[in-house]
């Protein structure tokens, strides 16, 4: 065999095996390779921890029929594109990119790999092979806001925000609306940490808020560091973010929002196996269980707990929408009229504070 035939044979067999493997997966419902891009380490105890838990559940459910790979701590931005491309090249049939900042990289890579399916969490850009999914975390925030408003003694609530994106802004608004309803005197101070995961910075942010008088800390960052800072300070309550964080219960962690991705991931992998996968837009909340409310601890008085649970039930059943008018924007202009609920379109692009919140949202 001379060199040229050797090379062409090699090339043919590589092409052949790639084609064969994808054809096999599609035609026979054989092994589906599922990739995950994570923004933090799987041991962050919050956001990435829950996505990874769902990944493990996939392996348990499908056994040999599914192979999963993941990459941790992928920076949002240009490097994400490299990581996603690599995953697509390695033969993944379905790739979950699990942070907002992967939106454009996912769309770019998806255009180059039309046969690979992509699922992007918390974004709003779709393509034929890119679906988006998110959870209505703001429903959980409403319950946190209610408990926070009832429990605060200094009337100051601290909020550690990550990036100024609609998802985070929805959370702040929802928590504020319900804290204000429970206690008209509450004030919110919001710190933009510009990170999803940096325990030292999250801890510093929590301390700064506590030193400024806050006795309730809400966080939209992924680590348990603010919980530790609150515990050290003593009379400060917190809520588990993305995961239960029950190791800090009953104080400072008095409840939590738990992201439960497992049913969704199983559903989507099954769809790929069956060949029925289609790009879609999923946005589920308390009703379907995608947003779970962690146990309300004994540090919360019984009546407050009962109110919180009633609120949870009414949101879950669809009887109550956390963004129900009358609501004004921060500048005083009308957003929602009496009885009107916010359409999903407004919520998906939410970029303003509601009336009463102070400070500006950074651009």
């Amino acid at each position, binding site marked *: 065999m001379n060199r040229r035939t050797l090379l062409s044979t090699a090339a043919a067999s590589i092409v052949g095996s790639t084609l064969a493997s994808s054809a096999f997966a599609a035609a026979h419902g054989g092994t589906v390779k599922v990739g995950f891009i994570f923004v933090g380490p799987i041991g962050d105890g919050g956001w990435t921890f829950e996505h990874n838990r769902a990944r493990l559940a996939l392996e348990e459910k499908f056994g040999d029929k599914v192979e999963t790979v993941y990459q941790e701590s992928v920076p949002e931005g240009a490097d994400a594109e490299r990581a996603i491309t690599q995953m697509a090249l390695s033969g993944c049939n379905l790739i979950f990119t699990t942070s907002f900042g992967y939106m454009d990289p996912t769309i770019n890579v998806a255009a180059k790999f039309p046969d690979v399916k992509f699922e992007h969490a918390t974004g709003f850009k779709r393509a034929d092979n890119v679906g988006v999914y998110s959870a209505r975390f703001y429903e959980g925030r409403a319950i946190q806001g209610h408990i926070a408003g009832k429990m605060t003694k200094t009337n100051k609530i601290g909020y550690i925000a990550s990036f100024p994106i609609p998802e985070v802004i929805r959370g702040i608004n929802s928590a504020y609306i319900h804290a204000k309803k429970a206690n008209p005197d509450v004030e919110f101070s919001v710190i933009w940490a510009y990170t999803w995961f940096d325990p030292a910075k999250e801890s510093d942010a929590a301390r700064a808020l506590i030193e400024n008088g806050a006795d309730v800390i809400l966080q939209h960052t992924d680590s348990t560091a603010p919980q530790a800072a609150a515990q050290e300070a003593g009379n400060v309550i917190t809520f588990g973010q993305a995961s239960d*964080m029950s190791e800090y219960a009953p104080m400072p962690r008095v409840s939590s929002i738990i992201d439960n991705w497992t049913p969704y991931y199983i559903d989507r992998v099954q769809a790929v196996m069956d060949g029925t996968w289609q790009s879609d837009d999923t946005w589920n909340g308390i009703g379907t269980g995608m947003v779970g409310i962690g146990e309300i601890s004994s540090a919360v008085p019984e009546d407050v707990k009962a109110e919180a649970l009633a609120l949870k039930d009414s949101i879950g059943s669809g009887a109550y929408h956390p963004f129900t008018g009358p609501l004004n924007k921060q500048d005083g202009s009308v957003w929602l009229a009496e009885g009107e609920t916010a359409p999903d379109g407004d919520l998906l692009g939410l970029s303003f504070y509601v009336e009463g919140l102070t400070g500006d949202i950074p651009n």
Partner: protein
Amino acid sequence: MDLSSINPILLIASIMISATPILLAAIGEMVVEKAGVLNLGVEGMMITGAVVGFATAVSTGSPALGFMAAALAAAVLSLSFGILTQILLSNQVATGLGLTLVGLGLSALIGKPYEGMKTPTMAKLDIPILGDIPVLGRMLFSHDPMVYVSLFLVLAVWAVLKYTRAGLILRAVGESHDAAHALGYKVIRIRMMAIFFGGACAGLGGAYLSLVRVPQWTEGMTAGSGWIALAIVVFASWRAERVLIGAYLFGGVTVLQLNLQAAGVKVPVEILSMSPYLITILVLVIISARGAHGAPASLGRPFHASS
């Protein structure tokens, strides 16, 4: 705008705490670089120190033991870098990056059982007379001992490098290893000791994160502080007193911008967040323009006695 809710006493105290991990790591790395070795594995050594310190403190109940174990573990890890680069003459940049990756992976593995656990934290020192001074006492003299250890280390490094024979030899090795070798100094041995010291300091810095500043173990918790420590050494143009300034500036801006936000002051967050990095770049431009950047002349160059 309400600046009155920021308590300057607590603010300064927070800055000191926030700066201590990077100060410890940076002063160690400065000694390493003064000896002519570029160890980019600071992040890996810090996080190893963080996990070992945390694990030891949890199992023994003593944060002091935790710090010692952290220093030792990170120093031993740095010796692997030393053996590879000094004896086997591997590329320092690549080996240093490798050390970071090893440290991150190893710490995740060791730390798995310790997630969500709580540690005994270090008691604040109660310095008799100084601690009772009205404002200054709370601000400067009521921290945990490690804050003072870090300041003492800066002073010691400065004095040793400037006034002692050992410091002179270390600097000679960093400036011209061939000349130092010709004079009969054991270049490799001296560099190994410097690497060991740098590792120990980085370990202390990491343990300060997991035992005092955060305090808990979370995978990847150093989140880039090792790289900041490396930048501070350059910022300081390899001088101990400037390392102190650099670390406090970084810590200060971080804490200050969080406090300003908490107080509801309208500040452009993005600009404040990037200001330490901007200042570092500015300093680099200035020292490059002046031509005298103060880097040890043999920094990063491999040494072999036969060459």
